[in-house]
């Protein structure tokens, strides 16, 4: 009797497993379908789409859409712009934020929690309240319509959040490590650079992956401080492409693929850090 009930439990478990994979598999297919569709569309020819419809089965294979988006649509330039903004911004924001977090978490500065929360509060402000003044300020500085303005505002707006996350992380580093270095005569800079920063690497990796996608994907700040097409980063350029190649879905799809590729690459390469970053940011 116990043998039969044992096999019944095993059968039930197998059924549950099959049910799980069926459900989760269907969900995944549903989620990946739009991505598959855009990949397929990007390598179809315009005539094929016109003749068989967007949802139809593909009858052609060509990289012409990519060529048009890349060369004629200016996506090459746009991708370079995006990288010129994203890489320095990520590096500068993390450098500045880690310094502030170091100072706030390792020294008894007056009002340090107030400072910390004021900085976090700045990041929580809805950006809409800043758009008009920021565009005006960058005009006054002669930075309007340059990538410097975009880098500046991205650093200023982002830094508070990173300080907050890194502060939480650095607080967990034991004080003793630092005290030993102080006794050995290490300067604050040496403590920061040689001791605390290396120990903060996991959080820095997580935040880099996260901030890369955030800054790379931004649209609002870009169209607020930039005007010329040749200055636009990839997201804004993609909107331009949409206007320029109305209903040429192969070009628009190819453009979307180009715009999504770098962040997807970062995600696939640093998936673990990426997920860790989201949790660091949210739970802290």
């Amino acid at each position, binding site marked *: 009797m116990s043998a039969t009930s044992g096999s019944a439990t095993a059968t039930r478990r197998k059924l549950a497993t099959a049910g*799980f994979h069926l*459900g*989760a598999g269907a*969900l*995944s297919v549903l*989620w990946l379908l*739009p*991505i598959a569709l*855009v990949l397929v569309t990007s390598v179809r020819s315009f005539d094929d789409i016109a003749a068989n*419809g967007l949802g139809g089965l593909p009858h052609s294979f060509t990289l012409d859409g990519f060529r048009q988006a890349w060369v004629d649509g200016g996506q090459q330039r746009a991708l370079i712009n995006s990288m010129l903004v994203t890489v320095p911004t990520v590096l500068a924001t993390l450098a500045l934020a880690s*310094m*502030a977090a170091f100072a*706030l978490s390792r*020294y008894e500065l007056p009002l340090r929690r107030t400072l910390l*929360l*004021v900085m976090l*509060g*700045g*990041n929580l*402000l*809805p950006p*809409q*309240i*800043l*758009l*008009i*003044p920021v*565009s*005006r*300020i960058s005009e006054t500085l002669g930075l309007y319509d340059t990538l410097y303005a975009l880098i*500046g*505002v991205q*650093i*200023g*707006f982002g*830094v508070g959040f990173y300080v*907050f996350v890194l502060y*939480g992380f650095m607080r967990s580093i034991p004080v003793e490590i630092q005290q030993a270095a102080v006794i050995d005569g290490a300067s604050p800079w040496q403590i920061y650079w040689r001791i605390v920063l290396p120990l903060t690497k996991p959080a820095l990796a997580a935040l880099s992956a996260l901030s890369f996608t955030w800054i790379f*994907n931004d*649209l*609002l700040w870009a169209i607020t401080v930039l005007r010329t097409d040749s200055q636009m980063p*990839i*997201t*804004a350029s*993609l*909107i331009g492409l*949409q206007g320029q190649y109305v209903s040429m*879905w192969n070009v628009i*799809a190819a*453009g*979307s693929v180009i*715009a*999504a590729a770098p962040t*997807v690459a970062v*995600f696939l390469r640093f*998936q673990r850090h990426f997920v860790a970053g*989201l949790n660091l940011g*949210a*739970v*802290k």
Partner: protein
Amino acid sequence: MAAVVTGNPVAGEERERRTAKEDNGPRRKRSTRVPPVVLAFVLVPLLAEAFWVFWPAVQGFYLSLTEWDGVSAPRFIGLGNFREMLHDDIFRTAVLDTVLWLLLFGGLSALLGLGAALLLQQERRGVGFYRAALFLPVVFSLVATALVWQAMYQPDGLINQALESVGLGSLTHAWLADQDTALYAVIVPALWRQIGYVMILYIAGLKGIDPVLYEASKVDGASRWQRFRHITLPQLRSVNAVVLSVIVIDSLRSFDVVWALTRGGPYHSSELLSTYMYSTAFQSLRLGYGSALAVVIFVLAFGVIASYLVRAFREAD
């Protein structure tokens, strides 16, 4: 914000170091003075943020009290912009759409994100792939997301074709061009992208629940639903608070996906406060009125910002 912060000025670390007797006395002298370079470490980032965020924010509030075309000097008109909103039909639409967005986009992404997390929380074979599939859209730009879905929504796109193939041809639609469906059609891609994010937060929360609680309740004969209702949900309270804040702030900031898909149209039917603010300021060049709309967004977000900061303040110890 200041009120929040002055509520409890004693930093945790100091509190730990003091004995109960010293609690109200002067601070104990510490051997580590704060070196100037450490001050610079804080001041440089703070100044960067002050210059690009705090100073513009102050200006933004001031500009909301002016009428300004961006060319001549701003003219102070007091609360005139806010009075104008009362009679502005587009503003009313934008507020209603923003509320609807908050409820539908926010509510569904929380519910479905939690559902996905419950389904995919267990470490078992293949679960990594499923999680990655749901999570992948999170890294897409909302603009790319929007364009992907624009292709799906086309008259000859996948959605209409799927409807026809299952015999629901009568439901086919120009989804984005119809005033009745545009807003909902915009919410779907936003959800597609957000659910994976919420799922990650909930999975982390679920992993943090002590398994002993479940084992004990099983021994006591609690049903699956009872365990969910009386253990999982209460234990997720702090994650819920995070998700709620993220959702409200994200909803009020939502811009890219609407801008890429409909620009708020047709006839403002998918207009959110954020898109209305942007087009008022940078297309109609009514910078004062645009600033006032931004203030409305700020006021709506304020409660969340404040409660987020209160929680952050407690946890900063």
